[in-house]
């Protein structure tokens, strides 16, 4: 290996997830934000919320890593939505 290949995170996806209230969107953002990404050089996620919409921006080195990462975040969002629906 002579040179370290610089990979850029060109594969992107943005999800907009509508919640019933602004509070719920902000809860979801706070719940998801703290967890570290295992390979930050390959995959990045940004969470933010605007009114009742949660915005999730994914950036990744290829579509395979992107797909795996997105699906795991969606799994977590499903748990959050179910918790909000059933326990509030």
């Amino acid at each position, binding site marked *: 290996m002579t040179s370290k290949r610089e990979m850029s995170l060109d594969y992107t996806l943005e999800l907009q997830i509508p919640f019933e209230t602004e509070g719920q969107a902000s*809860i979801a953002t706070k*719940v998801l*934000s703290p*967890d570290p990404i295992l390979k930050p050089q390959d995959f990045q996620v940004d969470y933010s919320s605007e009114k009742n919409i949660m915005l999730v921006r994914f950036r990744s080195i290829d579509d395979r890593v992107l797909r795996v990462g997105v699906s795991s975040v969606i799994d977590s969002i499903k*748990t959050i939505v179910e*918790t909000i629906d059933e*326990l509030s």
Partner: protein
Amino acid sequence: MVNLNTIPPKNNRDFYIAIGLEGSANKLGVGIVKHPLLPKHANSDLSYDCGAEMLSNIRDTYMTPPGEGFLPRDTARHHRNWCVRLIKQAMAEAGIKDPTLDVDVICFTRGPGMGAPLHSVVIAARTCSLLWDVPLVGVNHCIGHIEMGREITKAQNPVVLYVSGGNTQVIAYSEKRYRIFGETLDIAIGNCLDRFARTLKIPNEPSPGYNIEQLAKKAPHKDSLVELPYTVKGMDLSMSGILASVDLLAKDLFKCNKKNKILFDKKTGEQKVTVEDLCYSLQENLFAMLVEITERAMAHVNSNQVLIVGGVGCNVRLQEMMAQMCKDRANGQIHATDNRFCIDNGVMIAQAGLLEYRMGGIVKDFSETIVTQKFRTDEVYAAWRD
């Protein structure tokens, strides 16, 4: 002396309520514990005698077919599917209507364990914390086992043998920490038994170790043990070699490999050893090793109590062997719990978390709730002990 009453219960109640969420392996547990607020806890060393009341203790185990173990991804999916339902059921059982007023703290397992299942449970814990405005406490799984065992058995300062599917440790308390005196150098004892059960293709229900225990009881040749490696290394153990060796024997037995002189008679070719005998010998061998290092730890710290916790702790034969060792020591006592509290559960997380909460230890920022696969028992500062 320790003051367990530093934080008063919410809403002017005279008792504390904690919810515990456990999901570090294939069991998902939700438990609710109630501690009365008692003046005697204000200045004492009574963390083993909180008067805890279990309001609910629900568990759902992810089961795999015989011959298969549980994988992180599938286990995490199981926990996600069941977590909210279990919390709801536990609260209904405990009669909690408004968690914002009725729950003091939500406790969750922060580690050690499998990453994906731990993560799926902490997501629910964080959401509940924000929804209900209830603080969180992250609990070390091993500490959960220890504190639950102490509360149930009222053992004040025992040497703890923690034996489960993922951990094998001999622990004693000293200077605000649970110190590890001996542990496995490779695989855990429960892992060794589970994987042997997989080789034998016996069911995982109710638990592989239990099924091995039942087979071992029926061993026809208990008088002659099959020789297996005995690998105590100082205060530590090694079990992967034992597993490899007993696996090899089982495979020869299934293939009817007559060349194996341990299993078949040299001259007549008659079978000398059955599957049950292998189970029996494996158990005797492993448990003898555990008893040996536990006894040495007891001599080290001058203790005469042993507390067995963890899933393998349900094994009656292990309890028997440990009791025999204790009997030979002056005033030796053995403490063990049944499968409600031995096997991973939510109440143990609630119990340990509530102790931490009563000492003022709550999560101040969600960055403290990041789960971790490696989290050693001695990393925890046991503020609630003297």
